[in-house]
């Protein structure tokens, strides 16, 4: 297979990118996946919990098992996977600038899918740069993928699903979660995730925040405090905690650099994490040959990332003439139905609205 020329380039070997490649390859598209990491799978392999949804969405199956299934399929289909390879820009004539093993080379692709995922947001507080203050996702990677515990007495900051799940997984890894602080007056993630850690004795301190990480060369403690309705620290409520690891779980934002370099139109959508590339209902951006899928299009879950990936895959295949209109419409209807299911309910409402808005805004922009 030619490293310099491909029909479809997929940047990002996470759940979205892998599903894109699988669908496209099944339809006969010559596909190349690019990922800067040494191993494919994105954040799937650190998801050691069982997934929600229905059997269609791999419910009841652990994230890493799903990851392995996707990788097995990629191998069976003979998709070219370029690991430890950075796609650093999009140039004219569909050229992607590539850097790998000390060499720079062009990769020509007829169509591209950017599926670069997301990054954790930081929280700034006194002492936030001390070794021992880490993103919750970073800690999750260390404990679940590498088998390394960066600390044994933990303060978790944030009660979204990431904070709740990683707290549970830290206990599974043998650490003690001394407390979880949440600035809101209620748990922001799902009750079931909170329930799991509450019944293991983890105190969830609502209307609380971290004021400071203390320690000379690394985290030796934390100062937490109560906050009022405007999130202002209430005087005199400070309390010291004896911890050696502080996990920050305050949300994710899409990794849009490549989309921006490719001149895709971006829009700021706070409900989905920040700046993200606008796209139509086929996952196509303002650049005709560039599609997007997964968390780069807005922070959701691995399940939605996989569905979006499938959609981008068949859309690209359709644009490349591998699929007729009728079959494409039928297939996209199935994927959209499955995707829509994942956005139902109270927790999905905001995401659903934002996603519908994106497609609407895209249409509006393309006309003007």
């Amino acid at each position, binding site marked *: 297979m030619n490293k310099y020329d491909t029909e479809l380039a997929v940047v990002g070997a996470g759940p979205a990118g892998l599903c894109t490649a699988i669908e496209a390859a099944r339809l006969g598209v010559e596909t190349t996946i690019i990922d800067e990491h040494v191993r494919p799978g994105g954040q799937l392999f650190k998801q050691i919990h069982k*997934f929600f949804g229905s059997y269609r969405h791999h*419910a009841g199956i652990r994230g890493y098992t799903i990851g392995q299934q996707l990788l097995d399929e990629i191998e069976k289909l003979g998709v070219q996977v370029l690991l430890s390879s950075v796609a650093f820009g999009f140039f004219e004539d569909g050229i992607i600038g590539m850097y790998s093993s000390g060499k720079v080379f062009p990769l020509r692709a007829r169509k591209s899918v950017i599926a670069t995922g997301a990054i954790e947001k930081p929280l700034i507080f006194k002492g936030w740069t001390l070794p021992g203050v880490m993103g919750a996702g970073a800690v999750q990677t260390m404990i679940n993928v590498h088998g390394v515990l960066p600390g044994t007495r933990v303060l978790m900051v944030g009660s979204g699903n990431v904070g709740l799940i990683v707290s549970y997984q830290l206990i*599974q890894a043998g650490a003690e979660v001394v407390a979880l602080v949440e600035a809101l007056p209620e748990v922001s993630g799902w*009750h079931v995730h909170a329930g799991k850690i*509450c019944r293991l004795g983890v105190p969830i301190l609502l209307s609380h925040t971290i004021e400071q990480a203390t320690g000379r060369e690394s985290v030796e403690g934390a100062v937490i405090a109560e906050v009022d309705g405007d999130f202002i620290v209430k005087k005199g409520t400070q309390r010291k905690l004896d911890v050696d690891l502080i996990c920050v779980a305050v949300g994710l934002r899409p990794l849009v650099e490549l989309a921006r370099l490719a001149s895709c139109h971006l829009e700021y959508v706070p409900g989905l994490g920040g700046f993200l590339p606008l796209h139509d209902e086929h996952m196509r951006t303002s650049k005709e040959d560039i599609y997007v899928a997964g968390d780069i299009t807005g922070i959701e879950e691995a399940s939605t990332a996989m569905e979006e990936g499938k959609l981008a895959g068949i859309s690209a295949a359709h644009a490349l003439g591998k699929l007729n209109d009728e079959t494409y419409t039928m297939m996209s209807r199935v994927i959209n139905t499955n995707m829509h299911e*994942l*956005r*139902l309910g109270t927790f999905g409402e905001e995401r659903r609205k934002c996603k519908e808005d994106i497609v609407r805004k895209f249409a509006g922009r393309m006309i003007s």
Partner: protein
Amino acid sequence: MARAEGVLTIEEIRNCPGWPGEESIEKKRVAVLECVEDIPCNPCEEICPVGAIEVGSPITNLPTVDGEKCTGCNQCIAICPGLAIFVVEKNHSEQLSSISIPYELLPLPERGERVEGLDRSGEWVCDAQVERVLASKKFDRTHIVMVTVEKKFCHDVRSIKIP
């Protein structure tokens, strides 16, 4: 509200659709689905071999359990991604109730071991005895630990601590 803090009250559980009903609780070993939020999710319905659990469409519906049909086979305990299902037998014996909980920690408790019975907020409620520890390839690393407790605590104990 208790749900928003991560801890359901017994009242909230009795009122949720996953409560099998007082009659079944008194009569037999039965699943209690402590599931109260409209998250799109239904593997409990899909796995139940006797069709006792119903979610239907849309899959955000809260699951209900038909106490008559339920055989207490434990499969729903293991597959629930939220670890929110328990199998309770209030009248396990003259004095004791049994509660089967999902367990994904090390060390595993051992049959016959005396452990601490904790409630939904992790507080010690009573001592419990481990009667069985079940593992199965189907359960995919979620063990089912069955403990016996004094009857009056059968709706409280949902977690254990190995002393």
